[in-house]
């Protein structure tokens, strides 16, 4: 039997809400029934679950869940709410005789004056709860939310000034608190500023955690970050129980200064050092993996050129034979400090990189495994087809969430390997002779566009 639950979301990353709900229910092997046309821009959503335990699992793991309620009623007016609530009497009548309780009335995007809060509560008097009111430790908490349209432009979600337009809410939701979300506190736990090792490429904690949830990280899984840098996503993944491999073309990103390597120091701080299986220095386009189908997930923030440029081994121009001989000599006498020879690198165009990454993931992922990565893109120019230009047979996009920075943005893409076939590693060659009228994805030459301010003045230096 399915029961309805009211999910209250934290006010951030609204585009990431549904993918997270879906990933965590898939990870724990239960079904979540979503509304037919879910509006993720809204802070409340009524979903159906087969078991209250599933609500608890979601609240423990989803970074974007503030709390979950047993759903009793919703409506654009209180008349509608009370009507529905009465018709759902069977859900709450067991609390009538002897259950201590409290009532919360809260506005979203709005502060409801105390007086009217009391009125709202009094209008639920027909529920006739006989237990004592207990504000500190009630057995049940009833919650009534009034959702207001966000008026001025407070994208930061601050409540509107005082009580203006009190009562002009968009919708009301009513239910009984099941569980407060506990995963959100991890955002503080993994705060980059409090980390033993981080750098200017470190990914903010909340996004790293959301990415980790998209990988379905859990004990017994092996997850790989091929652009490891300072390892931001490795820590949440390891915290969720998975084993981690990391590699980077620049060993200094993973080492930092001092010993042990920075990534290990940070992992130690979080108690997950033993989950970091190994770190390796190599160019992912010239990688030493002996075989494919190794990983349950690949999670990565590819170098898109704003802070950490994409590069690959090689040179734009070939060297003369003498120079080659010199380099050869140099490379024959390595020093053991990770700098036996620093090979030259050449730029790696983002749309090639993205295509290669999907092919690499298809090779390295186990069947059913996931690739989770960011794709920066110029918001105005972005089209759905951008992702499809980099897709290949056997891989399927299952989530695509925008993080909007104004004139640019980035999309968190989750791709599942749907095929059981064995695939070869990618050839890492730019697509030769592209048709002239072929679609040019908006992330092509992202770096250049970024530094040109996307041909506009303004907020292009958001990073």
């Amino acid at each position, binding site marked *: 039997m399915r029961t309805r639950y009211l999910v209250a979301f934290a006010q951030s990353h609204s585009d990431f809400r549904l993918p997270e709900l879906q990933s965590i229910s898939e990870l724990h092997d239960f079904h979540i029934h979503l509304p037919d046309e879910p509006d993720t821009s809204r802070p409340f959503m009524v979903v159906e679950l087969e078991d209250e335990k599933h609500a608890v699992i979601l609240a423990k793991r989803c970074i974007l869940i503030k709390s979950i309620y047993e759903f009793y009623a919703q409506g654009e007016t209180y008349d509608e709410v009370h009507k529905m609530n009465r018709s759902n009497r069977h859900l709450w009548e067991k609390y009538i005789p002897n259950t201590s309780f409290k009532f919360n009335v809260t506005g979203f995007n709005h502060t409801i004056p105390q007086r009217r809060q009391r009125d709202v509560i009094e209008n639920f008097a027909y529920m006739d709860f006989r237990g004592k009111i207990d504000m500190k430790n009630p057995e049940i908490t009833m919650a009534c939310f009034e959702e207001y349209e966000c008026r001025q432009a407070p994208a930061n979600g601050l409540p509107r000034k005082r009580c203006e337009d009190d009562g002009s809410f968009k919708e009301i939701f009513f239910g009984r608190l099941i569980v407060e979300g506990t995963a959100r506190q991890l955002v503080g736990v993994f705060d980059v500023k409090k980390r033993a090792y981080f750098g200017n490429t470190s990914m903010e904690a909340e996004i790293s955690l959301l990415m980790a949830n998209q990988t379905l990280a859990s*004990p*017994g899984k*092996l997850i790989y970050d091929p652009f490891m840098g300072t390892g931001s996503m490795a820590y949440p993944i390891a915290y969720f129980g998975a*084993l981690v*491999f990391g*590699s980077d*073309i620049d*060993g200094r990103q*993973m*080492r930092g200064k001092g*010993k*042990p*390597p920075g990534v*290990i120091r940070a992992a130690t701080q979080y108690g997950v050092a*033993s989950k*970091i*299986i*190994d*770190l*390796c*220095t*190599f*160019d992912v386009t*010239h*990688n*030493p*993996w*002996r*075989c494919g*189908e*190794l990983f349950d997930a690949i999670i990565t923030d590819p170098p898109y050129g704003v802070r950490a440029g994409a590069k690959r*081994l*090689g*040179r734009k121009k070939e*060297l003369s034979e003498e120079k*080659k001989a010199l*380099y*050869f000599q*140099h*490379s024959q006498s*390595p*020093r*053991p*400090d*990770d700098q*036996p*020879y*620093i*090979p*030259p690198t050449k730029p790696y165009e983002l749309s090639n990189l993205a295509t290669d990454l999907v092919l690499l993931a298809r090779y390295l992922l186990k069947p059913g495994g996931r690739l989770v990565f960011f794709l920066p893109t110029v918001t105005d120019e972005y089209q759905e087809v951008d992702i499809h230009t980099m897709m290949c047979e056997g891989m399927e996009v299952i989530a695509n969430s925008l993080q909007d920075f104004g004139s640019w943005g980035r999309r968190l893409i989750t791709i599942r390997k749907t095929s059981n076939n064995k695939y070869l590693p990618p050839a890492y060659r730019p697509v030769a002779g592209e048709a002239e009228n072929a679609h040019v994805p908006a992330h092509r030459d992202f770096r250049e566009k970024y530094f040109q301010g996307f041909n506009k003045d303004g907020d292009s230096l958001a990073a």
Partner: protein
Amino acid sequence: MVRLVTHNLLACHAKDCNTNNFPLVFQNVQLEIREAEFNPGFIQSFLPKIEWNALVKTAQELGDTSLPIDQPEMIDDELLKNLHHVLFEIHIVEGAMICPNCKHNYPISDGIPNMLLAEHEIA
């Protein structure tokens, strides 16, 4: 670090080095044994990816002879424990890995191997 599970998954990838390029041979190594959490389920499911002969040979070169030369069909608890130790608890902290074919030297420092190739070694 460089645990043997990692070592077992890496092959020399220099240009035209396609045969006899695995397993890489450890040289001048400095070992550390670090206890790791026992995860029998993971070992069982990952075993098909492991090249048994390479693992046994490498473990022996590092002084661990706990694994049978021929891969047993039945995996008992003792074998799982030994595999756990060999795959996850032996760490190579310093030294190098040498390609048996082209002799490329992949140095290891602070547990991180440098697998970068030189210019003439990339395809």
